[in-house]
């Protein structure tokens, strides 16, 4: 790891005036066998697109903000922003996160320790606009000049040298989508400033007050989930088709006949999966079904709208949408009368259903919830399922989802399981609470539009890919098949895109998947070969 070099934040106005695009030659270099790797520049929007959609100061586009039709429309939006900002800073309008927001806004000592902790800042070759303090400082200057009493008097002398204009707002909104909310910066900060939280509150202000949010999170995310049942668009009929296929597939692959339980009242666990698993990684839900059934656990899935999709993208951008989805999750569990919710391999669902709900949802509306990792640890360590680790005789490394590790402190269960089932397990460095984000956090993994996929493969995922190569450096040749264990749907989506962009299968024989697939691959009662190395 590079030694920390602490530099001051360069003049904000200077960097806001100039656009700063990613220079692919400055991206952190990759080790063997990637010394010859060449990245093409991130493409800009076409002229036609640029006439309709705003993009960030780096030419990248995530929020897909429509270009306002007139100067009056721009002024109206700026006025709305200021109104929204005032609300963000008052308890009656922001009781949810006002305290941590103000603590972080008021107490940053600008030491820049956070900068070197940020995988996007360092991965990009240290672009100023990606510094964790950059967008926070923008917001601070706007507050100081336009909200605080007397802030408009000699603003430049006070350092409040930011002009609030539509262009400034576009930059702020887009830059709030160049941070994965991984909160590695908050952990590194000597005074506990949470620039991830500030970024999330900026997103919230834009979403709740101006209707600006990444479409994959809002229209195609929470809105779709609350109307159709899942952000994937999967309706209950489709769900049943998926499950029928899963049962057939399990029988064919393992020789075991399993009935996937639905809507069982009074079950011990309501298992909530990210519905992405159903469509893109069905072997994950199959593996859960095999383990829980063979271990004799009392469990069920729900077929009710929202109940079969654990995602809650509101966590990333909007309190209202967060609450709507969270309440629906608990309502489904209460109706079934289950004892607990078991959250499957999805990091942000863990955080949404557990620690954030602890803060925001009243106790009487909640249902006890547990991480699948904790349940699995008990089954594996206490030998409630029979395992033959020699079946997993290939190199395995573990990617830590930020929301499970840094946000919740669940570190050892997944490791205890791997030590028991994967003889060639090795850690990547750094790991645990010090992990690097996959680069797809905070909804980036689901954003597949315009030039954003190019950005996240090259910039936000760069350090993670370097870590993977380093973890497998003793056996990097493509003939040795190796497994990146990523127990989170969002991380898996990013892993898929990263491994594909860097041609990792062809160059290094690297495959990715969840944790339960590895468990089932080692189960004595299951026919050998659950992991399908040819399916990539």
């Amino acid at each position, binding site marked *: 790891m590079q030694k920390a070099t602490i530099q001051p934040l360069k003049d904000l106005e200077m960097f806001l005036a100039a656009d700063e695009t990613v220079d692919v030659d400055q991206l952190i270099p990759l080790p063997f066998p990637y010394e010859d790797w060449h990245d093409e520049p991130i493409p800009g929007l076409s002229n*036609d*697109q640029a006439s*309709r*959609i705003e993009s960030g100061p780096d030419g990248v586009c995530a929020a*897909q903000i429509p270009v306002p039709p007139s100067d009056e429309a721009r002024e109206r939006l700026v006025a709305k922003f200021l109104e929204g900002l005032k609300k963000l800073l008052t308890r009656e309008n922001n009781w949810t996160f006002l305290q941590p927001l103000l603590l972080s806004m008021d107490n940053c000592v600008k030491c820049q320790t956070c900068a070197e902790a940020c995988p996007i800042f360092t991965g990009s070759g240290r672009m100023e606009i990606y510094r964790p303090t950059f967008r926070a400082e923008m917001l601070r200057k706007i507050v100081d000049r336009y909200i605080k009493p007397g802030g408009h008097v000699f603003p430049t002398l006070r350092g409040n040298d930011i002009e609030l204009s539509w262009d400034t707002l576009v930059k702020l909104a887009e830059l709030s989508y160049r941070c994965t909310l991984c909160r590695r910066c908050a952990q590194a900060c000597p005074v506990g400033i949470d620039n991830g939280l500030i970024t999330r509150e900026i997103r919230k202000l834009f979403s709740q007050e101006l209707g600006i949010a990444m479409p*994959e999170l809002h229209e*195609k*995310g929470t809105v*779709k*989930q609350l109307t*159709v049942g*899942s*952000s*994937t*668009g*999967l*309706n209950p*009929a*489709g769900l049943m*088709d*998926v499950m029928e*296929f899963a049962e057939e*597939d399990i029988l064919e692959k393992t020789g075991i006949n399993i009935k996937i339980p639905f809507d069982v009242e009074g079950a011990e666990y309501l298992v909530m999966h*990210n*519905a*992405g*698993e*159903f*469509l*893109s990684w*069905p*072997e994950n839900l199959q593996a859960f079904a095999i383990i829980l059934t063979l271990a004799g656990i009392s469990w069920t899935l729900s077929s009710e709208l929202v109940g079969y*999709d654990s*995602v809650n993208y509101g966590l990333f951008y909007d309190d209202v949408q967060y609450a709507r989805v969270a309440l629906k999750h608990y309502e489904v569990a209460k109706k079934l009368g289950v004892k607990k919710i078991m959250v499957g391999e*999805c990091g942000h669902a863990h955080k949404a259903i557990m620690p954030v709900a602890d803060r925001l949802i009243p106790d009487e509306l909640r249902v006890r919830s547990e991480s699948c990792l904790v349940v699995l640890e008990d089954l594996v360590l206490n030998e409630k399922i029979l395992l033959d680790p020699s079946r997993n005789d290939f190199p395995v490394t573990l990617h830590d989802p930020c929301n499970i590790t840094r946000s919740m402190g669940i570190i050892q269960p997944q490791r205890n399981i791997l030590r028991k089932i994967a003889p060639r397990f090795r850690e990547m460095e750094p790991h645990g609470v010090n992990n690097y984000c996959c680069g797809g956090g905070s909804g980036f*993994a*689901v954003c*597949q*539009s*315009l030039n954003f996929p190019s950005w996240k493969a090259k910039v936000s995922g760069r350090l993670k890919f370097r870590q993977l190569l380093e973890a497998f450096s003793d056996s990097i040749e493509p003939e040795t098949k190796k497994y990146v264990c990523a127990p989170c*749907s*969002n991380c898996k*989506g990013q892993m898929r895109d990263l491994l594909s962009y860097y041609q990792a299968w062809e160059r290094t024989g690297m495959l990715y998947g969840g944790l339960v697939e590895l468990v089932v691959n080692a189960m004595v009662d299951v026919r050998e070969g659950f992991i399908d190395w*040819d*399916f*990539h």
Partner: protein
Amino acid sequence: MPKFTQGDVTIDVDEDGFMLEPEQWNEEVAKALATTEGVEDLTEAHWKVVNYLREYYLQFGVAPMIRKLCKETGFKLKEIYDLFPSGPAKGACKVAGLPKPTGCV
């Protein structure tokens, strides 16, 4: 709103070229969309994939699992990539007139 025009075909598409109104799809549209995916001729194998995706979408409102697509059409994943170079989700679904996949897929 971006439009995609080729020959007699004019359709509304999203920023990544997926149809916004899948009910406007027909075989001519499929042929036109295929050219944007680097597929000049839709062979019988292409149609097998496209028709399966189409029928599944009309029934369930989403694209099928890739694993199911492979099983039902008899093609290996690699063969689907050979037919549609940008893959089943981005390439084949676009030609079949499905909207762009959403959620953690």
